[in-house]
């Protein structure tokens, strides 16, 4: 049934408003009239300052939170429908920040198999899925059967926790700062895994991140939230091509774009090679006029 959604909107959010502690004096609107959609197979980055509602929005995608007003549809079905909500978690996998805090089982393997077991799959199928998920994140399935998740290094624990979410084989993965706290190589590798899942296996990825360099190099589309509303939306080139508003709300440009901006070179660069090219072009333009330049 999901094939029908290829390239179409697998998540539709219409005029979503969410109020925390509704009906009490502490009530505070976390999301106001948000409308957006996520297309199947796209890599969407949710950005915005702390407290802008990114995580609240993400929790609506798999029914952990339900709209105070408005509607959220996943694969065409309303997330408020009770018997759909029970199965929604298989469609949309969600990893909170520092997901390794949720590890609990005796072995890494059991922890990863927890999701598939909740699906009540046959033992071999559980085994197969858990092993596959562990391999995707670069952990050895055989070793995982012997080691306690509490004996792993921080980076390994992170990957084990994410494998636990991949093992359910959800069509959409929602990831909240999955690489926070890892070293540069660990960050790059882990984000590479998700880009790969999107490009080769057609997964839909929703990445919540503060890191604009990652957003620029990974995203097909960026949605910037501010105070619970959608502030900017578009391709990285569109969003970073209009830096004024972003800088105003305390966000930064990716380094390549920021360098071009400060040098006054027209256009947007999303990657370092691209920035290099643009700077070389600017210099070439200069050489034409002043042959002795450089």
């Amino acid at each position: 049934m999901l094939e029908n959604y290829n390239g179409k909107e697998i998540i539709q959010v219409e005029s979503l408003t969410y109020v925390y502690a509704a009906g009490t004096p502490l009530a505070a609107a976390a999301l106001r009239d948000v409308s957006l959609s996520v297309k199947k197979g796209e890599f969407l980055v949710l950005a915005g300052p702390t407290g802008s509602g990114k995580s609240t929005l993400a929790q609506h995608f798999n029914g952990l939170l339900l709209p105070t007003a408005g509607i959220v549809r996943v694969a065409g079905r309303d997330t408020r429908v009770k018997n759909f909500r029970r199965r929604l978690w298989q469609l949309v996998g969600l990893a909170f920040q520092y997901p390794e805090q949720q590890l609990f089982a005796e072995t890494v393997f059991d922890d990863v198999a927890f999701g598939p077991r909740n699906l009540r799959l046959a033992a071999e199928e559980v085994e197969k899925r858990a092993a596959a998920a562990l391999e995707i994140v670069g952990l050895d399935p055989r070793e995982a059967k012997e080691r306690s998740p509490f004996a792993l290094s921080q980076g390994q624990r992170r990957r084990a926790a994410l494998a636990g979410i991949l093992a359910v084989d959800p069509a959409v993965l929602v990831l909240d700062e999955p690489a926070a706290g890892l070293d540069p190589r660990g960050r790059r590798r882990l984000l590479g895994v998700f880009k790969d899942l999107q490009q080769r296996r057609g997964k839909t990825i929703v990445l919540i991140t503060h890191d604009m360099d990652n957003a620029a190099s990974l995203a097909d589309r960026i949605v910037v939230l501010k105070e619970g509303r959608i502030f900017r939306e578009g391709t990285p080139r569109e969003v970073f091509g209009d830096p004024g508003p972003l800088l105003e709300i305390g966000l930064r440009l990716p380094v390549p774009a920021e360098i071009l901006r400060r040098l006054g070179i027209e256009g947007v660069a999303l990657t370092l090679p691209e920035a290099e090219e643009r700077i070389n072009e600017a210099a070439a333009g200069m050489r034409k006029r002043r042959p002795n330049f450089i």
Partner: protein
Amino acid sequence: MPGFISPQNRPLRGSAVDDYYIGIDNLKYVYNRGEPGEKAALDGISARVDRGEFIAVVGANGSGKSTLARHLNALLLPVAGCVMVNGLDTRRPENLPAIRREVAMIFQNPDNQIVAATVEEDVAFGPENLGLPPELIARRVDAALKAAGLEQLRTVPPHFLSGGQKQRLAIACALAMQPGCLVCDEPTAMLDPAGREEILNTLLRLNRSEKVTLILITQFMEEAALARKVWVLDKGRLVFLGAPAELFARPELLTACGLELPAPAELARRLRAAGWPLSLEILTLDDLVAQLRRILGQNPFLNQNMI
């Protein structure tokens, strides 16, 4: 472990190490010593810290950065070798109070180092432990809150603070001990970019204007670029010790240690390879932009307003 000399039997050195402000001599540390999970964490580290310095310590996850940091104020004690702070050996229990006063620590998770129920009380916790009279504590609290820019938040419960504010509270708590040295163990790892900048600016100001010695453990190479000196740890060994510019001139070393050049230095390297006359001293985005501007500066086709 062969070759290890038990701390009790090892003669304390009278020379070099204790002449330094902080001296580390052939420091070794092993987790779960003598147990099945035994794991060498630090393997023969020797280094020194001078007063007023700003040193960044970088390395991949599990390279031993935090373990090293915890040796600098005797939260961990060497399995072999020694650490001397201001001439005091960390292995001697009677030195602990003086060492803890001299070297203050700031940890990664801002939530796990707040003790009390309000900002003010939390800052007072350290001086209270020193047994100071109330007036003196009040004075220290005032000064520390001011230095960290938290005067307005004195009576606020900590769980109402933002991540950056919590970490500034941790800095204020450290300052209330009037330390000569701040050891910061990845203080920005759990913060958003705005919070990160807030903390870095505070730390830099303390180092520059208050002459506080700053040792910054970090995974962000952009932060290491701001330091005067960088130590690179790899699997418990100190594999590099020198200025950031020297380190960034050796990208292969960084790669081997699981690290990367910060983006501006990486772009400078690429441009240099393409023939641009950029100096090796480019560490930060500001440096790179300044040099490129000087070269491109006279171009009439660049939009001068943007520069």
